[in-house]
């Protein structure tokens, strides 16, 4: 196990992890060194034979003994070096891959935190509670009305059964019409929620009414039927309102399969997904866990999360975020529930397939797997479901199944017949979201961890420069110095030996080859060791570059996801009733209501500086934080890009962005990123644009926070000195930086071409010289998130070499 690497766990050529390259390497060195002893013996014998004095013989023998000592030291040194080599790789891989596993679960946690906010803020919209209350009321009265309708119809039918001159000839037909209408009596739910059924019913009633109108004394029945129709009309109208509102939300937040509203009995009365609507409305979810738990959610800040794969909604693997909907008028009375079906399968797919090495055709490399398990150890998402199937228990070593929150572990195991290293990290939630107790696992083939780096080349840095850099651990540097030292010692011993022999004249000739052989062996062994050290250094460099790529990718992913949420939020808010009301009829009362609404909305988020509502002329009408706007009374935004872009938006659900920069809406020269959405008259999808809502994202604080989390840490989790993280805009201008001294805001650093010419979602890494500083740098370009395209930004993480 990697985790249990101890001092006594020394290099052994029999360890299965040792690569064949290294075995050969080791054998060669050892063979050479083993050859030293016989040579030295030969040297000592020769000395005895040729020496004329005891001093001469002693001198030669002493030289030979020094050579033997060195050979033994080199032998130990080689083993030590291999030890360091493998330990360093294990160490580094543990750190980078455990971090990767953690980044994945952390991405899920961050997403889920946003989702909990979603369902809670949607559930308090009065449109839903009002609709539910009306539907509940209508539903109760319908119960009675449908029963009464039966009686009236029976009576009507009976009246026709008394043969009279005027009715006799129609009786049979009437009876059929009455029976037709009567057959709908037990189909209350269908009548309420299935538009087609309701329309058929209405048609039947109309036909019957026409017939009844011809008869006498049928007024009461007709009135009765009209009541039922009117009631049903009302239900359908409110279902339509609720559905339309859910659709508005659903089209802003595409990461949900569906959003539903249910009554307290678990009857679905509205949903967001129009395609699924005919199958979904009127269905009962009373037996589903998310619904049961939603009913128990107490106050406004309470929600439930349930994983489901078998809902009547037929939604696949989803996480359902649910909460109770309360009456707007009667305080705490629960009138229904809301369930948001988060598309877990898709989200897991996006995250799990990311941060994995790919082959040329774009597929993930074989032997690499990434998956999530829930608290029971069952797989909830997999990068390759054919091999790691979702829903089953993961075959993992015990240690990986009993992690503690935030904990990581790594070990070797055979996964699907591959010798693999397994890296796991458990969720510790994010901010006030506790997480679901899930773990993230990353499987890497062991031979890839210890792959030979012998032919590694790196542009922009020499092996010597690399060896002296801060990347190389002290212990390896010490070994490097020691090898250089040994190399010198062997050289000097041999040369002295040769000089000594040459002075013996003809007698010394026999010693010549001995020293030559020693020189060769020494040179070979030390050269090999240097080669291994260089390989180690390049391995260290490669892994460091990989780490920086991972961190830069995390930095751009986090910002993309964050901005995705912003783009979703602005689309939703722009449809808010209070906003369009204030724009259509800017009475004092309406404007104040809009201001209040903006303040409430902003109050539940921490990442907005301000929400600003402007009318179509570009005059600011209301704001969540008017005190932050210089000259609020006369504030105009007519020439602001965000306003103009949104005024030009053609279709419903569009949003616009104004890239990071200074804005007149901010005091001083504070930079902000502004998202905007058009507000349409009456909230209608084809409504006229009556104004624009702009949200001033607190770019400086939020991006600064993210950059900080993406700065590299050492193996003990301490931040590495001198590292820099920055975001660059589409034009490579620095828009946020963790070190304004070296990479100042607003500048355009000379990035190497491979870091500039990145395609969306691509990463690169290499040596980067900035002024007098030499860094290694990892860069990643935004690829957006779901339908959010990203702004073409890139993230760059720098680590100093010296």
């Amino acid at each position, binding site marked *: 196990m990697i985790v249990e690497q101890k001092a006594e766990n020394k290099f052994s050529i029999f360890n299965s992890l040792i690569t064949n390259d290294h075995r050969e390497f080791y054998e060669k060195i050892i063979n050479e060194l083993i050859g030293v002893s016989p040579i030295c013996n030969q040297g000592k014998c020769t000395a005895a034979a040729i020496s004329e004095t005891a001093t001469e013989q002693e001198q030669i023998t002493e030289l030979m003994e020094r050579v033997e000592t060195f050979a033994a030291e080199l032998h130990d040194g080689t083993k030590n070096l291999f030890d360091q080599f493998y330990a360093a790789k294990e160490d580094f891989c543990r750190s980078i891959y455990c971090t990767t596993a953690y980044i994945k679960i952390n991405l899920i946690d961050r997403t889920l935190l946003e989702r909990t906010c979603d369902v809670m803020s949607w559930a308090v919209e009065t449109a839903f509670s009002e609709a539910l209350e009306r539907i509940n009321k209508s539903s109760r009265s319908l119960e009675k009305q449908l029963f009464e309708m039966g009686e009236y119809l029976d009576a009507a039918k009976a009246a026709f059964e008394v043969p009279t001159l005027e009715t006799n000839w129609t009786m049979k037909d009437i009876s059929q019409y009455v029976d037709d209408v009567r057959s709908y009596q037990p189909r209350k739910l269908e009548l309420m929620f299935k538009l087609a059924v309701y329309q058929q019913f209405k048609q039947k009633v109309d036909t019957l009414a026409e017939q009844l109108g011809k008869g006498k004394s049928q007024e009461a029945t007709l009135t009765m039927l009209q009541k039922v129709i009117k009631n049903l009309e009302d239900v359908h109208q409110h279902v339509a309102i609720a559905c339309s509102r859910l659709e508005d939300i659903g089209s802003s937040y595409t990461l949900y399969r569906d959003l539903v509203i249910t009554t307290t009995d678990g009857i679905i009365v509205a949903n967001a997904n129009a395609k699924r609507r005919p199958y979904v409305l009127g269905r009962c979810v009373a037996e589903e866990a998310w619904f049961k738990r939603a009913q128990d959610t107490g106050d406004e800040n309470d929600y439930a999360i349930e994983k489901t794969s078998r809902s009547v909604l037929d939604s696949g693997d989803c996480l359902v975020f649910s909460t109770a909907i309360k009456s707007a008028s009667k305080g705490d009375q629960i009138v229904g529930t809301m369930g948001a079906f988060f598309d877990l399968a898709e989200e897991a797919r996006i995250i799990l397939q990311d941060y994995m090495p790919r082959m040329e055709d774009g597929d993930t490399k074989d032997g690499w797997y990434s998956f999530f398990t829930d608290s029971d150890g069952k797989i909830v998402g997999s990068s390759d479901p054919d091999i790691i199937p979702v829903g089953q228990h993961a075959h993992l070593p015990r240690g990986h199944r009993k992690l503690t929150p935030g904990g990581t572990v790594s070990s070797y195991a055979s996964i699907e017949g591959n010798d693999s290293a397994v890296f796991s990290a458990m969720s510790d939630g994010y901010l006030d979201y506790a997480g679901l107790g899930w773990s993230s696992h990353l499987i890497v083939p062991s031979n890839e961890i210890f792959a030979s780096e012998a032919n590694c080349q790196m542009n922009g840095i020499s092996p010597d420069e690399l060896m002296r850099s801060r990347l190389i651990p002290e212990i390896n540097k010490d070994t490097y110095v020691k090898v250089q030292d040994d190399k*010198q010692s062997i050289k*000097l011993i041999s*040369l*002295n030996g*040769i*000089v000594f022999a*040459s*002075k013996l*004249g003809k007698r010394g000739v026999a010693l010549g080859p001995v020293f030559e052989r020693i020189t060769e062996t020494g040179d070979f062994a030390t050269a090999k060791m240097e080669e291994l050290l260089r390989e180690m250094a390049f391995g260290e460099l490669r892994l460091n570059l990989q780490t920086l790529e991972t961190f830069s990718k995390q930095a751009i992913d986090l910002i993309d996801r964050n901005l995705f949420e912003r783009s979703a939020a602005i689309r939703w808010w722009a449809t808010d009733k209070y906003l369009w009301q204030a724009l259509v009829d800017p009475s004092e009362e309406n404007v104040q209501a809009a201001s209040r609404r903006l303040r409430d909305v902003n109050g539940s988020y921490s990442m907005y500086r301000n929400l600003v509502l402007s009318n179509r002329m570009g005059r600011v009408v209301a704001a969540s934080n008017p005190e932050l706007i210089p000259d609020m009374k006369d504030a105009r935004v007519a020439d602001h890009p965000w306003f103009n872009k949104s005024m030009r938006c053609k279709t419903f659900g569009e949003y616009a962005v104004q890239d990071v920069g200074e804005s007149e809406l901010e005091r001083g020269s504070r930079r902000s990123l502004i998202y905007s959405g058009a507000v349409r008259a009456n909230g209608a999808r084809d409504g006229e644009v009556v104004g624009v809502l702009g949200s001033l994202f607190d770019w400086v604080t939020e991006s600064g926070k993210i950059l900080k989390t993406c700065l590299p840490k050492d193996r003990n989790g301490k931040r590495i000195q001198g590292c820099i993280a920055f975001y660059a805009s589409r034009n490579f201008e620095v828009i946020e930086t963790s070190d304004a001294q070296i990479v100042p805001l607003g500048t355009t650093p000379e990035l190497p071409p491979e870091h500039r010419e990145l395609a969306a979602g691509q990463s690169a890494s290499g040596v980067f010289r900035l002024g007098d500083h030499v860094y290694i740098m990892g860069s990643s370009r935004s690829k957006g998130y779901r339908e959010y395209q990203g702004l073409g930004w890139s993230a760059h993480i720098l680590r100093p070499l010296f």
Partner: protein
Amino acid sequence: MQISTFLIRDEAFAINSLLVEEYFRPLPITKVPGSNSRIDGLVNIRGRTAVVINMRRCFEIPPRQSSDPGEMILLETSSGLVDEARETGLYAFDEPIVLNVDSVSQIHHLVDEEIHAAPPHVNQPFVDGVIRVHDKFFTLISIQRLIETVLQPETQETL
């Protein structure tokens, strides 16, 4: 004849191997006030005091980086010369002398015809000629003239 070669910057030099007593790692040098700039100072080799001649200075090459200590060659004294050396008339100083060089390299066996006269543009008085071994060239140093130039400048002047 055998020559011992060494490097100063990236130029290769050679001296007769019979004049080498020992190669060793650099020892701490004690500076001697007032001595001329081509002398680094004194070192103590197993109880013997030797004068250190800085070869970079002798060839007017800028000093090495301070992190690179170089290597040292202890020359034979006149009393330590082997018979063969005396017979060929090799010169050695009475006192121990150390050459401070960048690094010692190899020992080569030579035949006489590989020694050529120094090219006319070389005006260093202690260059004896140029040696070619395969495709490499070495500047052969005359220890006698080196020592005369560095340690006994007044002798030089009288000549």
